[in-house]
């Protein structure tokens, strides 16, 4: 998908360049400005993620949300998913491994859902654009919603 975005960006950028060079210069300036505006936050996030991932590895997570962890396991899974920020292509295989290791579908559902929808680490970045209050509301709602997701996944996939 990154390839698709590169192709789309390259084609449109070339088009822009041939149509109006001055405007294309503006495109680059805007792109850079938008990027630089948020770069310090990006850098802090990836440093924090590095430390966190070094501390919370798959073994630790599978201990927390194992087979018979029940609703407490779902809550813990949701909390772990909220505070961690793992790229999808690591997160999904990890989740699959956790399932194999005996974690329940409901727990994995909660983990995957909050992982993607709730961002504790990215809170300052989100608040920069949406304000603290709205960011708090959005994350709380996404957190609560993840329990519904977990329950339905447990029902449909896990045969609860």
């Amino acid at each position, binding site marked *: *998908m990154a390839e698709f975005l590169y192709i*789309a960006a390259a084609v449109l950028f070339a088009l822009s360049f041939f149509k109006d060079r001055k405007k294309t210069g503006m495109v680059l300036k805007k792109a850079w400005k938008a990027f630089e505006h*948020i770069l310090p936050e*990006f850098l802090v996030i990836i*440093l924090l993620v590095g430390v966190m991932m070094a501390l919370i590895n798959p073994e630790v997570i599978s201990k927390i949300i194992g087979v018979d962890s029940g609703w407490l396991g779902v809550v813990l899974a949701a909390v772990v998913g909220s505070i961690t920020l793992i790229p999808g292509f690591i997160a*999904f*295989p990890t989740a699959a491994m956790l399932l194999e290791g005996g974690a329940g579908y409901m727990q994995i559902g909660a983990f995957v859902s909050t992982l993607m929808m709730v961002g504790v680490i990215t809170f300052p970045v989100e608040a*920069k654009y949406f304000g603290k209050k*709205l960011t708090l509301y959005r994350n709380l*709602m996404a957190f609560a919603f993840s329990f519904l997701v977990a329950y339905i996944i447990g029902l449909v996939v896990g045969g609860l």
Partner: protein
Amino acid sequence: MKKFLKRYLMVFLAIAGVGLFTLLNREAGLRAINITAYSFKEMALVLPPIFILLGLLDVWVPRETMVRYMGEGSGLKGIVLAILLGSAAAGPLYGAFPVAAVFMKKGVKFSNILIFIGAWSTTKIPMFLFEVASLGAKFAVTRLLVDIPGIIIIALLLAALIPKDKVRQLYENAEKMN
């Protein structure tokens, strides 16, 4: 220079923190540095086209066009577009916020921006395919089907909860960013 130092103060503190962490626990520290380098590579790979597209959108697409398709009164069309644009994205959620700022500038309806953020967070197509491969189609499709209405409901609730003047303030704030 002083402004630069002030803006990047947290970055320097975080680097110092990782350094200290590595001194205390060499193995975990090196692991952290490795993962950070990996994330940095990921960021450097995924973000450039997103920001170029953001720049192109900002410069070339007139506000009226964006308002027509995604602004107040765009109805279902705006919602569907918000979901499609968010789902076509790649990269971490924090990449979505600068795009949201340009949307605000272009007069996209607030609830549609929130739907876009929701879609980016959880219904991204590349991630969906990956989820199918790792956790099975049943898991991924169930989650997707619950998520789509969920994202819309959350967005509408949030838009209703936040007072109009607060939203206007956010839009003005976005204006200054680009």
